[in-house]
C-alpha cells in the first residue's frame, strides 16, 4: 500500500468512525420505545390475522387474515429477529427480551447458528471469495470464480421453486454446517466454498441435529398443528387456517430471501485482505453492497431496513431506525472520497438483476470467454443519490 493510499484509508476510517460515534451518542429511550413499539404492532397484527383466519369463512377475510399474519411473521423475522440478533439493542438495560443472546426467534432458524454465520462471517468477509459463506449459500453459484459443477445447471429452478419458498427452513443447514458436508461428499473439491470458522456444541452431530429440529419444530407445531386444530375443535375450518399459514410462511421466506440476497450478489467480489485496514474494510463494505429505494418509511421497516444495506453493513450493530439519517452522511463521505454509493431504483430491479445473474452463472462457462459471462456493466454501477 502506498503512502497516499494509506492516508486515504485513514481519512475514510476517521470519517466513518465519526458518524458511528455521533450516532452511538444518541442512543437512548427512543430506541427502547421503538423496538417495543414494533413488538406491540407485531402482536396486534398476529391477533387480527389469526382471529380473522380462525373465525372468518369468506375469501375476503382470508385475504385480510393472510395479510396481517404475514405482517406479524415479517416483523418478527427481520425488523425484530435479524436486527436484534445483530445485538442492536444489547446496550439497553431492562429489556432482556431484546438482547441478542436471549432472543427467541419466531423463525425456524437456530439463533446461535445464525449469529455466528451471519454476524461473524458474512458481515466481516462480505463478498470475499471462499470466505463469505453466503456467496455460496447451499450450492449457489453467482460469480465466475466458483468452479462450475453439473448441479449448477439446475440451480435456477431448484432455488426459485424449491429452496426459496421454504428458505427460512434451509438456513440451519448452512449455519450449522450440514451444507458443507454435502459439498464435501458430492463435489470434486470444496474450492470456493467458505469453511465455517466456528463450531457449535463442539461439532457434535447429534446436538446439531437437535438444534435444527427444535428450531423448525417450534414453528411447524404452532403454525401447522396448534392453530389448525384449534380451529377444527371449535367448529371452524382446519384447512383454511392450515393453508393460510402455509401461504404466509412461503411469502415470508421469499420476502426474506430476496431482501437479504439481492443486495450483495450483483456487486463485485472483494479482496481477501479487506480486513487488514479498517478504512479499507469500510470501503469494501460499501462496494459489496447495494441499497434499493422504497417510497415510504413503513416499507423500510418491512424490509428490516435492508434497503439501507450499505449503512447496515457499515454499522451492523446500530439500531436500524437510524439508517435513513445515517445514509445522508454516508453518501457525503462517499462523494468526498470517490467511493461508488450504489442504489437500485426499486426492489423489483434488485430482484431482476439478481435473478438474471443467477441464470447466467448456472451455465458452464465457455473456455476463454469468462469475461463474457460477467454481468454487463450497466447492471452493477447504477449510482444514484
Amino acid at each position, binding site marked *: 500500500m502506498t503512502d497516499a493510499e494509506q492516508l486515504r484509508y485513514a481519512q475514510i476510517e476517521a470519517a466513518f468512525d465519526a458518524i458511528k460515534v455521533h450516532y452511538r451518542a444518541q442512543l437512548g429511550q427512543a430506541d427502547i420505545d421503538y423496538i417495543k413499539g414494533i413488538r406491540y404492532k407485531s402482536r396486534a397484527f398476529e391477533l387480527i390475522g389469526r382471529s380473522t383466519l380462525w373465525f372468518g369463512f369468506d375469501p375476503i377475510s382470508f385475504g385480510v387474515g393472510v395479510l396481517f399474519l404475514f405482517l406479524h411473521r415479517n416483523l418478527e423475522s427481520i425488523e425484530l429477529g435479524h436486527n436484534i440478533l445483530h445485538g442492536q439493542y444489547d446496550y*439497553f438495560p431492562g429489556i432482556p427480551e431484546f438482547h441478542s443472546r436471549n432472543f427467541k426467534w419466531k423463525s425456524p432458524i437456530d439463533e446461535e447458528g445464525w449469529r455466528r454465520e451471519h454476524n461473524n462471517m458474512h*458481515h466481516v468477509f462480505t463478498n470475499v471469495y471462499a470466505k463469505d459463506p453466503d456467496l455460496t449459500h447451499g450450492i449457489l453459484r453467482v460469480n465466475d470464480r466458483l468452479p462450475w459443477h453439473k448441479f449448477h445447471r439446475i440451480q435456477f429452478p431448484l432455488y426459485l421453486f424449491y429452496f426459496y419458498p421454504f428458505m427460512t427452513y434451509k438456513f440451519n443447514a448452512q449455519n450449522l454446517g450440514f451444507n458443507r458436508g454435502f459439498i464435501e461428499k458430492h463435489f470434486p473439491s470444496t474450492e470456493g466454498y467458505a469453511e465455517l470458522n466456528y463450531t457449535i456444541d463442539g461439532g457434535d452431530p447429534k446436538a446439531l441435529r437437535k438444534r435444527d429440529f*427444535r428450531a423448525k419444530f417450534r414453528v411447524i407445531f404452532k403454525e401447522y398443528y396448534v392453530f389448525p386444530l384449534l380451529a377444527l375443535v371449535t367448529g371452524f375450518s382446519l384447512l383454511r387456517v392450515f393453508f393460510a399459514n402455509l401461504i404466509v410462511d412461503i411469502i415470508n421466506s421469499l420476502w426474506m430471501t430476496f431482501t437479504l440476497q439481492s443486495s450483495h450478489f450483483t456487486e463485485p467480489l472483494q479482496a481477501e485482505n479487506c480486513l487488514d485496514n479498517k478504512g479499507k474494510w469500510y470501503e469494501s463494505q460499501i462496494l459489496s453492497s447495494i441499497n434499493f429505494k422504497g417510497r415510504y418509511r413503513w416499507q423500510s421497516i418491512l424490509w428490516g431496513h435492508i434497503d439501507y444495506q450499505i449503512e447496515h453493513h457499515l454499522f451492523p*450493530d446500530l439500531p436500524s431506525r437510524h439508517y435513513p439519517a445515517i445514509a445522508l452522511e454516508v453518501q457525503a463521505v462517499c462523494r468526498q472520497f470517490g467511493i461508488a454509493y450504489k442504489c437500485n431504483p426499486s426492489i423489483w430491479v434488485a430482484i431482476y438483476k439478481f435473478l438474471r445473474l443467477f441464470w447466467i452463472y448456472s451455465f458452464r462457462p465457455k473456455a476463454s470467454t469468462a469475461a463474457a459471462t460477467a454481468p454487463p456493466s450497466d447492471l452493477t454501477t447504477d449510482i444514484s443519490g
Partner: protein
Amino acid sequence: MLTLFNRFLINQLGRDHSEYLASNTMNLINQKLNPFIWTYDLKALVLKRVSENPEVITVSLLPNQHWQGAIAGQYIDLQLLIDGQPYQRSYSISAISDQAITITIKKIKGGKVSEWLHQHLKTGQILDISQAKGSFVYQDQAKLLLICAGTGITPGFSIVSDLLNRPLKTPDIQFFAQFSTQDDLIFSQKLKSWAKKIQLRLAFSQTKPETRLSAANFKQYFPDFQQRSIYLCGPEGFMHEVIAILEQENYDLSQLKVEKFVTAPFSNRSNQACSSVYFKHYNTTIPLSAADQHKTLLEIGLENGLNLEKGCERGICGSCKLVLHAGAVTGNTLGQAVYLCTAYANSETVVLGT
C-alpha cells in the same frame, strides 16, 4: 399453587423442555405473575428448611430452567437484597439430586446475611443464585483424605455422599471433621450411617481438646496421608495450621485441594489491576496473571478455551459483544455492552454475560 406448578414443570417436563417451551412474550407476562420459571435469570425456589442445630439450617433449593447442574463439592453464590443493599455470599452445596440442591447455612454472630437468612428464609421464597462454581470436586483418585472443620464440612460431605451413592466401588476414603462442641455437629445422622463404609473420625476442639488436630497427632490420625489426595476445607486459621503441617512433612502440595469461603478483603490497588474475569454464560472464572493485564477480554477468553463468538476483532462488527454484569471495563463499550475484542478489564473482578 404457583409453587406446585413450578415444581411440576421442573420435575415432570424438565429444565431443558421448560426453556424450549417459553417464548419472549411468555417470559414477559410470566415474570409479572410468577418470578421463578420463564425468566431471563437463574433463580431458585426454597423447597424446605431444616434446622440441623440451633445455629445451622439446611435449605433445599429448586433452581429454575437456567440451571446447568452441579458436581459434588461445588458451591453457589446467593445474591440478596437486604434493606435495599445488595449482598452476595457463597455456600457449599451439601447434597445434589436430579432436580434440587441443598445448602447449609451457619449463623455467624454479627453476620448480616446469615442472620437475615436464619430469620427470614421460608419455603416458597425465590432467591437469586449463581451457577455451581468451584473445582473442589472428586477427580477419580483412588485414596482420599478429607479434612474439614465447622460448616466447612459441607463440600466434603457432599463429595462423600455422592461417592457412596455411586454403584461403582467406592474409593478408600478417610474423613476427618472437627467441631468446637458436640452441639455444633451437623449431619450427625448421615455421619453415623457412614461409620462402616469409610474411616470416619470426629474431633471436638473445646469439649475434648485432646482430639483436636495438631502436628503431634497428625501422623497418628492419618498414617498413610502421603499416599492420599487431601481435600481441606474450614476456617482460615484451621486451614493455615494444616497446610503448615503438610509443608513440614514434605507433602506433595499439588495433591492438595482447598476451599475457603471467607476471602480476605482485596487491597486497594491504585492501578486497578484485575484478578479475575467471570464469564457468566460459560460459568467460567479466569484468573488473570500480571502478563494478562494488557490483553483484551476476548484474548483472555479465547486463550482459556472459551468458545467466544468473534468476528472482525477490530471493534466494528459487534459479534463479540457481551453485557457487563459487575465490575468495570475500559475501551470499547457502549451502555452496558462490552466489545470484548477492544475492551480491557478495569476493576478487581469483572463479570460478563449475555
